């Protein structure tokens, strides 16, 4: 891991239009409605590290992932990868080149492979799209290499996706992601659809490949035990905002934000230390109509009047970036 910053996300906002159709709005006298999926989010990811985003369903993790790879346009804010602004319309050629350096591994390995294509065609598609190899034989050779790299046989390329299990399919997805020699891979809950035993294999494979090729990962997950295994740094998201960013060790050892603590208390305790598990209380509020002030205050044990009024700003405490009035005031 080096200190160069590969991915820089600044003040990212994303709104979704969830208004009713025009006619309904006119007749029912309703205004347009927007859902704020991501709210003023800034992160920096260093070259070679694994940055994890965790949070409950609906916290906006996947939206961030889609914006970072360019599948969604941000409403506001900038995304810079390798010092290149993704929204810069003057640098189409560089951005096209850049596309080959960003790849994504998806959540559902059953939906992420075209069911009518043979595996070799799926894996070689990026090679052909980015013109990395021109001769047919070289493409076949490279496809075989990629398949062996992820622990499959080159002859598996002749098969169709339905002939593989979930874990093997995820391996194919990884092979496809590696096909364009990327620097940066966004993993959107890559193991949540897999059995626990297979999860470990896939995670270890991803770590091996990271060491081998110096890959940088943005790892989206809701599973804290997976994140603990994979990440160097962790960002905790709640309702589109980042509430705490810290190194994996210090986050697990010394969580600051009340929401992070709530998440950690819910993890099953493998050491059987007799510590009581606390289930997470309440549910994530409706993002169309988020609570005022700190959006976490309705569920927060430490909330007071100020939390209901003011949106907290992030500050540094022992290396943890925390966004909480209670921690700032020392009420926790």
């Amino acid at each position, binding site marked *: 891991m080096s200190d160069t910053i590969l991915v820089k996300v600044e003040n990212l906002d994303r709104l979704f239009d969830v208004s009713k159709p025009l006619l309904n709005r006119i007749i029912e006298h309703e205004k347009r409605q927007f859902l704020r999926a991501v709210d003023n989010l800034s992160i920096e990811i260093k070259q070679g590290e694994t940055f994890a985003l965790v949070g409950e369903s609906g916290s906006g993790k996947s939206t961030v992932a889609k914006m970072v790879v360019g*599948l969604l346009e941000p409403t506001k804010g900038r995304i810079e990868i390798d010092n290149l602004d993704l929204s810069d319309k003057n640098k189409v050629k560089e951005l096209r080149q850049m596309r080959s350096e960003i790849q*994504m591994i998806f959540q559902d390995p059953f939906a*992420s492979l*075209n069911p009518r294509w043979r595996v070799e065609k799926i894996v070689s*598609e*990026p090679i052909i799209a980015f013109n990395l190899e021109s001769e047919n034989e070289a493409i076949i050779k490279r496809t075989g290499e990629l398949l062996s790299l992820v622990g499959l046989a080159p002859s598996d390329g002749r098969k169709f996706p339905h002939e593989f299990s979930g874990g093997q399919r995820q391996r194919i997805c990884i092979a496809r992601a590696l096909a364009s020699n990327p620097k940066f891979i966004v993993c959107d809950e890559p193991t949540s659809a897999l059995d626990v035993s297979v999860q470990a294999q896939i995670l270890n494979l991803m770590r091996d490949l990271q060491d081998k090729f110096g890959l940088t990962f943005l790892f989206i997950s809701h599973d804290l035990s997976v994140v603990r295994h994979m990440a160097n740094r962790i960002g905790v998201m709640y309702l589109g905002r980042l509430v705490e960013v810290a190194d994996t060790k210090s986050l697990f050892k010394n969580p600051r934000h009340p929401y992070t603590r709530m998440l950690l208390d819910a993890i099953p305790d493998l050491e059987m230390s007799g510590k009581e598990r606390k289930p997470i209380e309440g549910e994530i509020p409706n993002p169309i109509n988020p609570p005022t002030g700190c959006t976490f205050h309705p569920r927060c044990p430490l909330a007071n009047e100020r939390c209901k009024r003011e949106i907290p700003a992030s500050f540094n405490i022992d290396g943890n970036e925390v966004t909480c009035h209670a921690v700032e005031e020392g009420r926790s």
Partner: protein
Amino acid sequence: MEDKNIKEETNWFARAIDSDIFYSFTRSKLVMVAAFVTFAYFFIALFAPILATQNPFDLGSLDLMDGLTPPAWQEGGSSKFLIGTDDQGRDLLSAIMYGSRISLAVGFTSVFCAALLGISLGLISGYFGGFIDTLIMRIADIQLTFPSILIALLIDGTVSALFPEVRREDSAFWVLVLAISLSFWVQYARTVRSSVLVEKEREYVQAAKLIGLRPFIIMLRHVLPNVLGPVLVIATINLALAIITEATLSFLGVGIPVTQPSLGTLIRIGQDFLFSGEWWITIFPGVALAIIVLSVNLVGDWLRDALNPKLR
């Protein structure tokens, strides 16, 4: 391992015999008979000039003296005309062969045109969404309010008003194809659109976007092959419908003119003579039409069930 794969690859015929669809085909005698009748019909229609004893479109070869000859087994029948003749002296059996040719040609062409139009518009509508989607779907809704007979009358009228020099014999075929495909495309467009809405959210489409492929390429290479299953079923069932619509239009006089009778035209000719005892002119083309439509429909129904994984 390697050898086995290659073997599977080359012997596609063995694989087809081994497939689920072929198995379900062999399970039903009804479907096998229907498929046989359908193919026999295609064969007869295709080779009508060789099989028929007379060319009913060649007015010079007709003899008015042969007109209204009853079927061979009836009194006054002739072995030359197995199932009798119409008022112009056409051999009905030959006329039915040639007529099926026109009916099938109209059916296939209009189903092809309707599918092409419907699939393209459905793909565009589903993939891009937004304003284009609303526009295409509203046009489809409006389209549904016009019966195909009305459209055919409209087009027929427009064509003869705009191009008075074009002969009815030449334009009739394309007027029919246009009318039928204009009234059938909506079904394809809606089906394809709804499948596309599901498929485009799939992650393999996202992955294709990620490597910077253009929307057109993604639509053709990734989305289209995965939405074609239901289209195939609709096309088969629509073939029967198109043949019936053609017959209806010809029966009403908007379709194929009397000089080149299709099945519908033959039925119309016969209708004038039905009450004076010459029943065969209407009945035989009618039976022929019923059999072909029934067979194609049965094959279509089977295909729908065979391709539906939930019914397997």
